[in-house]
């Protein structure tokens, strides 16, 4: 992480600390392409081989027999790809299962923030896709409408080194006592930063704690390189970094018993420090949606932001000077003294209205078996973290060192309802951006830390009353 050598620099390329100024048109094109872009192949990153025999990750000889219903067919609602090698591989994997079982599978890929509303409709009307891959604690909104997945979850867990604690927290519903969803793979997030500018700010290594992180941010700003973290309603990026910031300072939204737990010195400290961080940010962050920080980083407008690996992907394809001069770092640890990150979590669930629950379960099992799942993680080049521990060291993590910081995201993650179990109330607080708005109130809105906290508490109390 702290190694700032430009490891990917080809001989004769311009010095990374003198990046070419990108034109407005170039960045617009990149942004319009959804940032992941179709140019991965051009960057030499397209390794989309089909499913193949993998190394030995699982316990040999274990199998799960799920008799597939006669005449079965499946409809799957899945998130649209973040990186362009994802969907082709997933389709090939699906075709392989279809050929093996004779079950036709229709996959609908949807922009991920749109999935919860579609899932809500399916749950309420009792019809729709057999398998839905939604996010975070969406399955916990309707646990009694979902097919228990204990057999598949237990089988995969035993065969592949167990699920991460975070995955179990999202997949297992305590009130009904069942696994109700399978965590499919986390699109990990880290801090994305410009190497030369961080070095210019006097830091040889990326800070590992909040005080130094703030010092770095101020030094970057002083050098004319503002930072940029969304304080708008960016469902992925804004929620991710503000929750990390709150948790890192020892704050939390919920107590273990499910009551509102926002009121604490840690929260006040987090808000006050956020005001300092805000003073280092570029203008406009108050309205940033998810693509905005990508655009700003690629244009050289900001020196640091939080994101998945997609900025790096598009940089390698279209902005090589940025790619050479950027790196990733894990989120610094705060006064809480331990890593506390909010990582995105796609969850696959099977609705009870499905006529073919066994087919659905077997499809999910197949996708997570050795030879498929490890290849998917490898093919997507580090965009996803495997949710089963045995896959933690797949080869992709030993390739490009700039990908390495994404490897252990699941070890550092906390469930978004922390410190209580997932359910409707944490889901509502998350959907209503209570934490994001609290920090935005104190920064963009200019309120005092105590007023911002009081406002958030008022909103949280309403949600907690149910």
């Amino acid at each position, binding site marked *: 992480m702290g190694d700032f050598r430009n490891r990917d620099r080809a001989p004769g390329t311009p010095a990374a600390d003198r990046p070419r100024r990108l034109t407005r048109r170039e960045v617009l094109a990149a942004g319009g392409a959804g940032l992941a872009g179709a140019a991965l192949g051009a960057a030499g990153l397209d390794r989309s081989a089909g499913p193949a025999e993998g190394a030995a990750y699982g316990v040999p000889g274990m199998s799960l027999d799920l008799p597939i219903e006669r005449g079965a067919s499946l409809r799957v609602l899945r998130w649209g790809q973040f990186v362009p090698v994802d969907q082709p591989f997933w389709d090939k994997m699906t075709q392989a299962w279809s050929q093996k079982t004779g079950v036709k599978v229709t996959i609908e890929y949807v922009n991920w923030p749109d999935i919860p509303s579609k899932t809500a409709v399916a749950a309420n009307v009792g019809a729709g896709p057999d398998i839905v891959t939604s996010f975070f604690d969406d399955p916990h909104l309707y646990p009694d409408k979902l097919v228990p997945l204990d057999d598949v979850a237990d089988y995969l867990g035993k065969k592949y080194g167990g699920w991460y604690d975070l995955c179990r927290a999202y997949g297992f519903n305590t009130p009904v006592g069942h696994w109700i969803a399978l965590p499919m793979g986390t699109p990990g997030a880290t801090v994305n930063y410009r190497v030369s500018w961080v070095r210019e700010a006097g830091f040889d290594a990326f800070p590992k704690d909040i005080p130094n992180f703030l010092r770095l941010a101020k030094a970057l700003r002083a050098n004319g390189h503002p930072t940029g973290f969304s304080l708008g309603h960016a469902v992925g990026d804004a929620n991710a970094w503000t929750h990390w910031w709150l948790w890192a300072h020892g704050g939390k939204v919920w107590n273990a018993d499910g009551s509102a737990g926002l009121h604490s010195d840690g929260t006040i400290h987090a808000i006050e420090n956020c005001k300092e961080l805000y003073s280092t940010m570029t203008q*406009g962050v108050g309205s940033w949606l998810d693509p905005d920080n990508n655009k700003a980083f690629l244009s050289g407008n900001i020196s640091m932001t939080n994101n998945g690996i997609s900025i790096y992907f598009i940089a390698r394809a279209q902005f090589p000077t940025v790619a050479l001069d950027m790196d990733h770092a894990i989120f610094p640890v705060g006064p809480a003294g331990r890593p506390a990150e909010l990582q995105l979590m796609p969850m696959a669930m099977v609705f009870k209205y499905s006529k073919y629950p066994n087919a659905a379960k077997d499809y999910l099992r197949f996708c997570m078996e050795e030879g498929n799942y490890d290849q998917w993680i490898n093919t997507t080049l580090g965009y996803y973290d495997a949710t089963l521990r045995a896959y933690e060291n797949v080869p992709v993590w030993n390739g490009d060192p700039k990908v390495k910081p994404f490897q252990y995201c699941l070890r550092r993650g906390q469930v978004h309802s922390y410190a209580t179990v997932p359910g*409707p109330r944490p889901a*509502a607080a998350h*959907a209503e951006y209570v934490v994001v708005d609290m920090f935005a109130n104190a920064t963009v809105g200019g309120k005092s830390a105590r007023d911002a906290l009081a406002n958030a508490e008022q909103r949280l109390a309403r949600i907690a009353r149910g």
Partner: protein
Amino acid sequence: MSAVKAEAAVPPAPRATALGRFFDNKNVLGVVFVAPAVLILLALLTYPFFLGIYLSLTDAIIGRGGHFVGLANYTGLLGDPLFRLVTFNTFLYTTVACTCKLILGLALAIVLNREFMGKRFIRAIVLLPYIVPTVLSAISFWWIYDPTFGIISYTLRHLGLIGHNIDFLGDPGLARGALIAANVWRGVPFYAIGLLAGLQTVPGSLYEAAAIDGAGGWSVFRHITMPLLRPLTVVITMFSVIQTFADFQLPWVITRGGPNNATHLYGTLAFQRAIQGSHLGEGAAVAMAIFPVLLLTVIVSFKNLRRED
């Protein structure tokens, strides 16, 4: 005589069947003709409307039927600072946007009512903002207002008129203004074309008489054009207020309600709470909060129209 012969040549009408007699009954026929429309209204408007009222009185969440909680959702909203902010935002948005749309729409209609070359083409072009799908125009405005790459900031900066980009969407005040401007751009054609149709019904003889009497332009506009346009203006404004008050797509695509909830409207809040937050009861209560305002708008409008009659 020939007429009598001709009448005699007409073949006798066939005897009506029972079904024919049934449909010959004016009362029955009226009901039959109206029934499809009534059924559609019941299924697509009345049922969802009353379902919304019912849900707003329950604590229903997605996937679970709710229990009756009386007015708890409404009283909860009254004590909710975000709801109060959203109420302010919505009223501000509707009032400013509809006023601007009315003034600009009327001005445009008057211009389009004059004779000039390419009149038909220009009239067709004017409708474009209204024809373009809202989401597409919203995405365009999102780019136009982009804090880093927005075309307005880019142009002004290159003309040397500003030193740094304008933070259209990051500053609460500017964001409200930017969103209103987008709504005005989209809504002006609705007023312009509607009022243009009204202008074309004003008899030319009135203007000629006024000209003979020596009336000036402003006098003609004030004493002839405005009074005759008023009923149509009331109807157009009423529809526009209803649409603007319940706007969802523009704020959702451009700001998602940010920054700091400065552009959160009733529509976006209802969606956020009912669907994203899964609290259907509360979301329905937010949606129903729109109803009294819209009802009042309709009542005032129709009273105004009746007075005109």
